[in-house]
């Protein structure tokens, strides 16, 4: 318990420093797109777990807008209310598996197992993509998501911070429990909440950087589909959290849904935004 309190105090101290620093120098750009709150992330470079090509180790990511929190049950209820083809029971089976929105009480009723402000889960890639399109946005690419998620509360790349890495890893290694409401966690440097410690999130190109289903086939990158293989090709073999995200993404198909699999939307940097009230 003593260690835990120390952690809380240190985190609180770091957060305060972050806020002071931001006030001087890097206040996140905040806006709305189709009523959803977004923040500006990037531009930046992202070093994927696996080299994108044999001669490059980093990808340039242009500045983009990213929702500052995951899409909620309430958001998604509004969407299916106006998009009947994505209601539970009506959605085509090629677009969503049989567990689609199965924790909702009804096709248009959340019920006790789905609080309005919890992240929506049990949604397929198709449904997530349709939601974002309906809001003038798209899913973030893997590179965009990872660039945003690399930021700790104090640094653009927090992956060298042992505490930040451990906090991420701890979530992956504890069993699933009831999902908190969104904006439950501290925002990161960009002002984005809940990238770690709550849910897995769909990305636009989830099956792009595919880890081989047998993750030990390091050398065998045959087939255009497989950009990378197993651990020997990895650029940072200590980043177990990145391994787990890549493994998780590559286990998915676009119709799959999961009890802790949700999403948030993104938009290109030039996208017109609404003025904040």
């Amino acid at each position: 318990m003593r260690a835990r309190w120390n952690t809380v105090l240190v985190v609180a101290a770091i957060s305060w420093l972050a806020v002071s620093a931001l006030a001087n120098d890097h206040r996140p750009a905040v806006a709305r797109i189709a009523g959803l709150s977004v923040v500006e992330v990037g531009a930046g470079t992202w070093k994927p777990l696996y080299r994108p090509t044999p001669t490059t180790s980093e990808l340039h990511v242009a500045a983009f807008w990213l929702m500052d929190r995951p899409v909620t049950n309430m958001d998604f209820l509004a969407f299916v209310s106006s998009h009947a083809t994505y209601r539970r029971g009506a959605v085509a089976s090629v677009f969503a598996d049989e567990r689609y929105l199965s924790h909702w009480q009804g096709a248009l009723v959340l019920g006790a197992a789905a609080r309005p402000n919890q992240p929506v889960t049990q949604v397929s890639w198709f449904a997530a993509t349709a939601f974002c399109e309906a809001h003038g946005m798209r899913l973030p690419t893997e590179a965009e998501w990872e660039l945003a998620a690399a930021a700790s509360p104090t640094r653009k790349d927090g992956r060298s911070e042992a505490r930040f890495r451990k906090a991420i890893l701890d979530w992956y290694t504890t069993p699933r429990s009831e999902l908190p409401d969104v904006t439950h966690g501290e925002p990161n440097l960009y002002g984005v909440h809940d990238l770690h410690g709550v849910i897995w999130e769909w990305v636009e190109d989830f099956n792009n950087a595919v880890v081989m289903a047998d993750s030990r086939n390091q050398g065998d990158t045959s087939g255009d589909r497989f950009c990378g293989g197993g651990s020997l090709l990895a650029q940072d073999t200590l980043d177990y959290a990145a391994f787990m995200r890549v493994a998780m993404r590559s286990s998915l198909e676009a119709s799959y849904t999961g009890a802790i699999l949700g999403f948030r939307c993104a938009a290109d940097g030039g996208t017109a935004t609404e003025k904040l009230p």
Partner: protein
Amino acid sequence: MIHRSAFFAVTALAAVACNSPVAQAPTAQPAGAAPAAKAAETDTGGSAKGDFGPPVGAPVEAQLTTAPEVPAATGRKQPAKVVVDLEVREVVLPISEGVQYTFWTFGGHVPGRFIRVRQGDTVEFHLKNHPDNKMPHNIDLHAVTGPGGGAASSFTAPGHASQFTFKALNRGLYVYHCATAPVGMHIANGMYGLILVEPPEGLPPVDHEYYVMQGDFYTVGKYREKGPQGFDMQKAIEENATYVLFNGSEASLVGDNALKAKVGETVRLFVGNGGPNLVSSFHVIGEVFDRVYTEAGTRYQENVQTTVIPSGGAAIVEFKVEVPGTYVMVDHSIFRAFNKGALGMLKVEGEARKDLYSGKEIDSVYLADKASPSGVVQQATAESAQGTLSKSAQIAAGQALFQGTCSACHQADGKGLPNVFPPLAGSDFLNADKARAIGMPLNGRTGPITVNGQTYNSVMPPMSQLNDDEIANIMTYVYNSWGNSGKQVSAAEVKALRASTQAERPQGAAH
């Protein structure tokens, strides 16, 4: 790659060096030495002779068991189609008393459920990843002939199921494990088990078959540190195990969970090692393995004391139990047994066999390793036996024993060493609780204690070489020295405490 080439080159040289004397040997031996010819006659042919054609009859549902139970023999004489249903669960279970760990399991326990098929069977494998799980998983069965051992074909997201089919071409006992990135972490969290591929004629009958699987675990907290404990990646990379366990918990094979047999019965253990890192030196204290199918291969070695089980490998050991009592299974890399949990028990009931094993016949004092015990110790022992032991004789004997056993740490003047070894002189900790004080040499003590306002965080090992008389005399000497409270400790008190605190001592600590 340079390293790898160099390694192979060295290996090749070593092989040449080892082979050359053997190559010359036949000229020096009688012509009748025909082990090679005999081996050829009995060669099972491996996978080349493991296909007995398509499955016959209706598909069979495999009966899977949780360790230490083993499914019954298949009893089949023809190849069958066997359907295996295995569900992956991520669960929190005690790894030690009061210590919880998040295990990733094939079937809800560590090790995974035992699968038993017959050579030539066609196995239709269904891997189900429970919807409540966070991770994708898959399975690599070492019994599978095919790339990845089924791993790519069984890669499964939470809330989904995969199916693949293989023919069990090789007989033997095989490890299966998860092979999803990061592989080491999935294995370290308990994702392994055993599949037995029986030879076509089955295995010879025995009275008991049991399933034991070793694994090493890496927690953020120290060994037996209470509460929920997370996986420690750095310790795993350094191969610095916090726990080394049989069947996933310190409690799996001790007390009421001990394996059981009766005098005169035969026991077969299917022993696997999931790793992820450590090679096991598997040993049963007080038994000799009559037969060991080394590395779970086809041939057996006889009369083996300790067998090496590689990580990701297995062995089959068989023995007859002749003498009643408790037999302790250990990894004979022995600190793992007594300081990391690699310990299980086989309890054998039945009539004593004094002709085979007498039990303790004589318990006499032998003090060769202690500093000048003089006659006072033996005199005290003799007086104790006669019931005439005086307090002054106890103190004299205790002082001699103290100098030999205790003074190295606590110092001859009982003042200890600052910050390292707590003082016995004028010690509030000592004087406050007599039973607790007797428990120190008897059971040892690990972790922080406060003595006279100072905190000491160290380890005192149990002084298992001291008998009840000796501990009573040492404690009486200590209590009557250096301003302590003058209490007297009797051998009977030590004996009673030894009996009531048996659970606190590592079993078999005397080995």
